[in-house]
């Protein structure tokens, strides 16, 4: 166990180191990948392992962003304190949302979390503390060059992403992880087995809130200017879900594969569409998003367990429901 943790630290250190050797222009391309890796991993516990379709990642992201921005601007706090405030706000939001919604099953949980994004947008647009629809401009770090800042943001996001990955990896091997899987397979049965389902789900939901909140806080600093409708937007949520599911929800490796893959493909498509356009009567730009949509469809139809599932199938390893419940019983859950 220790050696693996060491390995994770080494990998993180290596990635951080590499980022300082590269051109900041290239690093800037990876900033969103690192951010979404963290978010997808945050989503993964409840969404991937627990099978609860959380469509509210943008809510946590936005609470974190506005929490940090308010702390930084209204209360003149330093960056670490602001990030902490953002995380706390996101967790409190997660607690309220979780207590309200985690008793709902299936589609209604999804609807609740989906609508929460719009509710928070409406609140942020209206209350004074967020400066309403006018948005908040965060303090700049004028002593640092833009290039240096780009690398710092990348490193911050990637460290967050890798930490989240480690947590998910640990949870996967814990009783908490097995309980989540049991909930996904058969929640009433899990209850009968004595799993305190509400607590298990709530903790996973709060993990999503924590990671989403931290990512949002960092994003606010990175963007410098945020306002409600840029932050509370369902595209953030959908990206997160796609990345996690395409890679393989319910596996710590899923988001690690899915995030760069999805972001890479969409960057590629943007450039293809963009460059073809230059030669005259280009292909319509909508094609790019049509392909994106078809990708969602294809993943759902052919890769229901993501790329990780595909690889597992090749190796002939299949996690059958029986296997999981056996594991659960063996643990005496």
């Amino acid at each position: 166990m220790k050696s693996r943790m060491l390995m994770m630290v080494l990998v993180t250190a290596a990635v951080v180191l590499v980022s300082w050797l590269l051109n900041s222009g290239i690093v800037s391309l990876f900033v969103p990948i690192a951010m979404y890796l963290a978010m997808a991993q945050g989503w993964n516990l409840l969404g991937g392992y627990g099978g609860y379709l959380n469509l509210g990642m943008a809510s946590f992201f936005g609470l974190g962003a506005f929490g940090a921005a308010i702390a930084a601007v209204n209360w003149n706090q330093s960056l670490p304190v602001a990030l902490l405030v953002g995380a706390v706000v996101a967790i409190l939001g997660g607690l309220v949302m979780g207590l309200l919604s985690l008793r709902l099953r299936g589609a209604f949980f999804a609807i609740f979390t989906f609508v929460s994004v719009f509710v928070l947008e409406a609140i942020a647009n209206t209350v004074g503390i967020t400066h309403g629809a006018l948005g908040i401009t965060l303090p700049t770090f004028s002593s640092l060059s833009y290039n240096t800042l780009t690398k710092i943001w990348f490193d911050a996001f990637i460290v967050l992403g890798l930490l989240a990955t480690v947590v998910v990896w640990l949870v996967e091997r814990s009783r908490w992880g097995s309980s989540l899987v049991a909930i996904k397979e058969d929640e009433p049965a899990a209850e009968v087995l004595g799993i305190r389902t509400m607590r298990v789900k709530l903790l996973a939901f709060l993990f999503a809130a924590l990671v989403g909140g931290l990512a949002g806080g960092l994003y606010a600093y990175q963007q410098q200017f945020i306002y409600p409708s840029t932050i509370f937007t369902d595209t953030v949520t959908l990206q997160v879900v796609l990345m996690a599911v395409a890679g393989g929800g319910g596996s710590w490796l899923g988001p690690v594969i899915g995030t760069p893959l999805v972001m890479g493909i969409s960057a590629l498509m943007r450039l293809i569409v963009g460059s073809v356009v230059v030669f005259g009567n280009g292909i319509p730009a909508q094609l790019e998003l049509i392909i994106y949509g078809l990708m969602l469809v294809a993943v759902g139809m052919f890769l229901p367990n993501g790329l990780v599932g595909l690889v597992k199938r090749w190796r002939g390893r299949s996690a059958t429901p029986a296997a999981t419940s056996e594991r659960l019983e063996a643990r005496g859950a």
Partner: protein
Amino acid sequence: MAKKTWLRRTIGLLATAALSLGVAGCGALNSTTAPHHQAASTSSKAPILIGGTLSLTGAFADPSAQYKMVDEYWANQINKHGGLLGRPVKLIILNDESNPSTSASEYETLINQDHVNLLLAPYTTYVGSPDVPIILSHHMLMFNAGFVGEQLFDQAKGWMVSFYTYQDIQYTQNFFKWMHSLPASKRPKTIAVLTDQNPFTIADLQGYDGQGGLLRYAKQYGFKIVLNEQYPAGTTNFDSLIEQAKLKGAQALVALTLPNSGFLIAKTVYQLHYHPMVEFFGGSEVTTLPNWSSLGAAANGTMSTTVAAPNQHFNGLAQIVALFKAHGVKVLPSYAASAYAALQVIQQAVTATHSLNQEVLYKYVHSHTFNTAVGRIHFAPNGTLPNTSLVLQYLHGTNVVVWPKQYATGSAVVPMP
């Protein structure tokens, strides 16, 4: 777990990470390496690269498509006549998907990978604002025909020059001047203001200090605000607001809107038989939108602003009007003239200085006057232009310029028909 598995797993992880980074990296680089090589070559035939992003998909797809049309028209014209400095011009317009962070990362690509020579701005403040620190850090001049925002221009310290003849805060300035110029008997005294909850329209209402924008102009020109309400984006029912405006006896209705609520407000005003003397839309130039006419009678008499109207005989304006006519767009959109003006200034500055050096161009554009499709322009130190917006009234399917007087093509119908 056996050590072997552990090792294999870790290697697997690293390989996957490397592979996926590779996929993303190549994706980002592949299609842009070609122009890069061309730019690096010393051949005098190497094209001048002009880059920028536009929202080819998403919420701002349509205006963006028309920007692109102007850009491509200009590039074709230039290339037909021997290019710029004897070199062909090549446009690299990337799709930012109406998404600010996508736009930001693409400006990085344009500057770092494509090594573009000149930069155009994306469409709208929402998408463009995160690009400002990027161009500033690279000391690249941004020719901005795409968005406004007094604060952003201050932040850019002159590295961004505007081709809009008014900024967000000034949206309603000339409208109030025009109202003030009306004879007392025809002048509304009370106004109702409806404002979309969007940073841009809020700035339009109250500036950045809470007292600027419309609030200041109304006070300055002596109009009384009897109703001042904000509404959330996506509002579907304006009936109660319009009824209140009626009830409070507002003689003028000023709506600071984005296009969609602008349509709905105009429709509601008509349906609820509210007859203000003046119905003005500030915040987006709704009356120059392609489908404003589809509102039928509800559109008649509504007012808005624009940067240039065909009758102004500005340099190149007629060509742009003809271009849009050829594409079946009858009313010239505001941004088309701005888009063309940006390219005209590029052309004039590059030709005059014989240089693509950003510092040289910076000095030149800030010290000269340019003859463009939005008029003879001279930039303020922060890169903005003095407010020379035109006030329009939409009458029987056409936009009549009613202010300022020297460009007026007709007189306003007050009270509105």
